[in-house]
């Protein structure tokens, strides 16, 4: 199997190198274009295909790279190779500056913001005529030369573009299978869930955006040297749409960009040759054909050619079986849910560390909720909620439907800020902190309607290891952090074992509901949290499964984990909870031991509808 992969790779490499000799000279031009567009579209695949962020302004970054490189080299006499890099850096910087504000938008708002950015950039290319040459274009483009070999002949320039395309594809293939790539794919499925396992959604989006902009910039710079003439119309909205078309045709696969670029470029060529030239309608029919192909493709296969490419080169989102290697940190295999020994321990949160082991009551609760309130317009969903959650304790939060339990969960876990009141974690005020900060401090949650990532069961749990493994986007691109990945996989397997899930390679959304809930619990445990908030974990479980869940919860408590449990199954709650808080109409109705709460007349009234009136 491995040998075959090597043979295929070598043959493919040989073919790519030999292509200019195998094809008629005319095709060298096309090959260069395919490779350049392919590299740029690969960045767009990452952005659109994997991260779900649509850019209709990629042509702007492409243009910034092109203008940056040739203006520096042509007008300021900077070394052409250095200019190539500077142009790329300029595009990346533009990506950062543009991405910083607009990535707060999502969906089609984001797409329209990038569209606007693309149009503004084109206008600037035209209007800043003293630098860019304006609408007439920029012609003074020097030649790229190394050791006396100059890259002018397309058959030679091809190798430059080939290196670019191969590097782009390799970077994407490496990135999406890394820890950071998993985060990219995770946040696409559910930003809330990604934040709940401590992923810094905003930062990851920005990094991905910058990376795509840098690839566009490098491609643009290469294009400019290749054509030796650039003008604003090369980088207008049409260019952005072309690039997006390539990405959509290719689909979410590392090869998608290059394949999409090849399809579009060859299609252009065919259309130009088929339509009689001279009538001036070649470009016209091309545009109409683009439109028709875009629409047709989206209707026929919204995923583009990804299903085909995925069969040719399957993306196995798993590390090799653990070889017993140890993480670089030398931490050794960590035990999931080891009661707060993970890196998630709040630095100043002394009470959390040794308390459960000592057996005495901790001086201070792990989680303190004080006078918490949250309103939606006129609706006061939570009002004056206050309780303590200690390490090594299961606290049940119950109440009739609409009592505000899930809202309380959302506020405590940082999904949205409270209207009033405070939340303290390990003694630190964390009121209004976002979910990813809560997760990094050791507090995580599950979701009432399960929010799993669209990836395998094992990967979902590996995503839970995000906070205590390392490796950002750049490490992912370079293929670093394999040891961390192996460790994450081992911990994920162990966490799955604890909850009793064995379907490691099944896609999470296709699991039955009950197992999805267990998977969410496993994902939370993989975080090595100090506290978990479980939102109806037993809903959809069968009787035997519920009993196993109860056993698991007790075991977790005994290890020192703090568990806040929202559950409608009274048998389960009364059985496992040490204390119970009852909510009704957003307010606290009662608090105490299970048997105490069970006999509270107010609670009985709330549940059975025997109103005092």
């Amino acid at each position: 199997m491995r040998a075959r992969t090597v043979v295929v790779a070598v043959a493919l490499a040989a073919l790519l190198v030999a292509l200019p000799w195998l094809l008629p000279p005319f095709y060298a031009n096309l090959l260069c274009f395919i490779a350049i567009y392919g590299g740029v579209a690969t960045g767009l695949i990452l952005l659109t295909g994997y991260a779900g962020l649509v850019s209709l302004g990629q042509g702007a970054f492409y243009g910034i790279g092109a203008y940056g490189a040739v203006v520096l080299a042509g007008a300021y006499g900077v070394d052409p190779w250095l200019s190539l890099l500077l142009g790329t850096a300029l595009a990346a910087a533009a990506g950062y500056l543009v991405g910083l504000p607009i990535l707060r938008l999502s969906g089609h708002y984001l797409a329209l913001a990038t569209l606007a950015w693309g149009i503004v950039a084109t206008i600037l290319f035209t209007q800043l005529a003293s630098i860019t040459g304006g609408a007439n274009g920029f012609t003074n483009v020097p030649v790229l030369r190394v050791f006396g070999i100059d890259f002018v002949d397309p058959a030679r320039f091809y190798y430059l573009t080939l290196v670019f395309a191969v590097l782009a594809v390799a970077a994407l293939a490496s990135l999406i299978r890394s820890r950071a790539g998993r985060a990219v794919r995770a946040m696409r499925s559910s930003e809330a869930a990604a934040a709940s396992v401590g992923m810094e959604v905003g930062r990851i989006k920005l990094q991905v955006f910058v990376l795509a902009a840098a690839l566009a910039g490098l491609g643009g710079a290469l294009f400019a040297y290749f054509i030796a003439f650039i003008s604003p119309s090369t980088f207008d909205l049409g260019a952005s749409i072309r690039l997006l078309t390539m990405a959509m045709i290719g689909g979410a696969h590392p090869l998608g960009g290059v394949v999409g670029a090849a399809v579009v470029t060859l299609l252009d060529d065919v259309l130009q040759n088929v339509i009689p030239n001279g009538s001036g309608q070649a470009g016209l029919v091309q545009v109409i054909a683009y439109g028709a192909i875009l629409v047709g493709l989206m209707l026929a296969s919204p995923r583009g050619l990804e299903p085909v490419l995925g069969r040719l080169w399957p993306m196995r989102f798993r590390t090799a079986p653990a070889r017993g290697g140890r993480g670089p940190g030398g931490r050794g295999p960590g035990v999931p849910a080891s009661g707060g020994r993970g890196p998630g321990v709040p630095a100043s949160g002394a009470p959390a560390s040794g308390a459960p082991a000592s057996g005495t009551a901790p001086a201070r609760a792990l989680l303190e909720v004080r006078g918490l309130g949250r309103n939606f317009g006129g609706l006061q969903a939570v009002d004056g909620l206050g309780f303590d959650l200690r390490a090594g304790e299961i606290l049940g939060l119950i109440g009739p439907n609409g009592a505000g339990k899930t809202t309380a969960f959302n506020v405590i876990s940082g999904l949205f800020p409270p209207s009033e009141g405070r939340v303290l974690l390990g003694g630190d005020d964390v009121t209004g902190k976002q979910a990813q900060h809560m997760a990094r401090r050791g507090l995580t949650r599950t979701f009432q309607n399960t929010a799993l990532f669209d990836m395998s069961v094992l990967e979902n749990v590996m995503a839970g290891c995000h906070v205590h493994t390392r490796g950002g986007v750049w490490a992912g691109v370079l293929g670093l952090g394999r040891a961390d990945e192996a460790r994450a996989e081992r911990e994920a397997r162990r966490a799955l074992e604890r909850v009793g899930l064995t379907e490691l390679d099944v896609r999470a959304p296709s699991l039955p509901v009950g197992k999805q809930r267990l998977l969410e619990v496993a994902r939370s445990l993989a975080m090595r949290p100090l506290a978990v908030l479980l939102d109806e974990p037993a809903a959809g479980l069968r009787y035997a499964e519920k009993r196993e869940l109860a056993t698991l919860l007790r075991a977790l408590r005994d290890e020192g984990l703090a568990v806040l449990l929202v559950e409608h199954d009274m048998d389960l709650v009364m059985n496992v909870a040490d204390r119970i808080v009852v909510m009704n109409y957003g307010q606290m109705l009662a608090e105490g031991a299970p048997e105490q709460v069970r006999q509270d007349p107010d609670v009985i009234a709330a549940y059975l509808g025997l109103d005092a009136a």
Partner: protein
Amino acid sequence: MTTGTALFLLVTGLTNGAIYALLGLGLVLIYNVTRVINIAQGEFVMLGALTAVGLTTGEATGGITLAILAGAAWALLALLRRRRWSLLWLPVVGGALLWWGVDAIGPFHLPPVLGVLVATVAVAFVGAALYRLTIQPAAGAGEVVFLVITTGLYLGLQGLGLLFWGPGSFSFPSVHGGQIAAGGVRVSYQSLFVLVATFAVLALLWLFFERTLFGKALRAAAMNRLGARLVGISPERAGLVAFAISAGISALAGVLIAPVTYATYDMGLGLGLKGFVGAVIGGLSGYPGAVLGGLAIGVLEAFAAYTTSAYGEAIVYALIIPILLLRVVATRRGAAT
């Protein structure tokens, strides 16, 4: 800047703004009912303007041709779905005959009012057909997919515009050539007419949504697709009607603007985007908001173009980003308080 200049810019801005407002209305209508952001909205303007020109001055009548083609494709799709194989020839032959017939009768020199009417109806029909052929089959797909689909429609329609009418620019006769002097500034009757027509469309939409059962059904489908289906309202039909009305309004906008600015095959995208900016300022769900937003964009553009001629366009487009950001912040705060 003198008061006279300022007033002149204000009137120019309001006239253009009224067109953005009409586009904004169309965009909001489609967005509310189908959750599609229609990148190709401006192309309906182009089709409307150029078709009306063609029907009255003897130029090409592309909108009619397109309506015939789209209708034939629609019928073909319907027959295929019902597996009526033996009837498949009907739309093909019928379409060809119609096309040939229109070609044989033309070129047309209809009176302007009739030309406008026919063009508006034809474009509304094209809008409905495009919904049926390209939007409805993708129902349930992500918003990105629709964005790409309507981008494809924009490309295709603009290309067809160039194919039908070429790169030239066309004018359309004004309703009334004169001007009136008001407060030291001359206002053309056309400008007044554009503004009046915009508010008339807004009023008609209001009547439609508030006073007719079908309008209410459309609103219901916009609010909750499943709920609407449960009470017997078809979201597909609602989407179809939304596209038809929206395309019709946009075509009308094209006819209104053609005497003021020239009509060209590539006039659509810019108008559509500005209409979108206006609609977003107005909240992207309210019709009066879209109108006010469109007018605001028009005025802003006029003043920006006067003060910084080269960057006027850039400023208007660059505004999209902060406006979108403000809206997001506003909606988040709205949820919080």
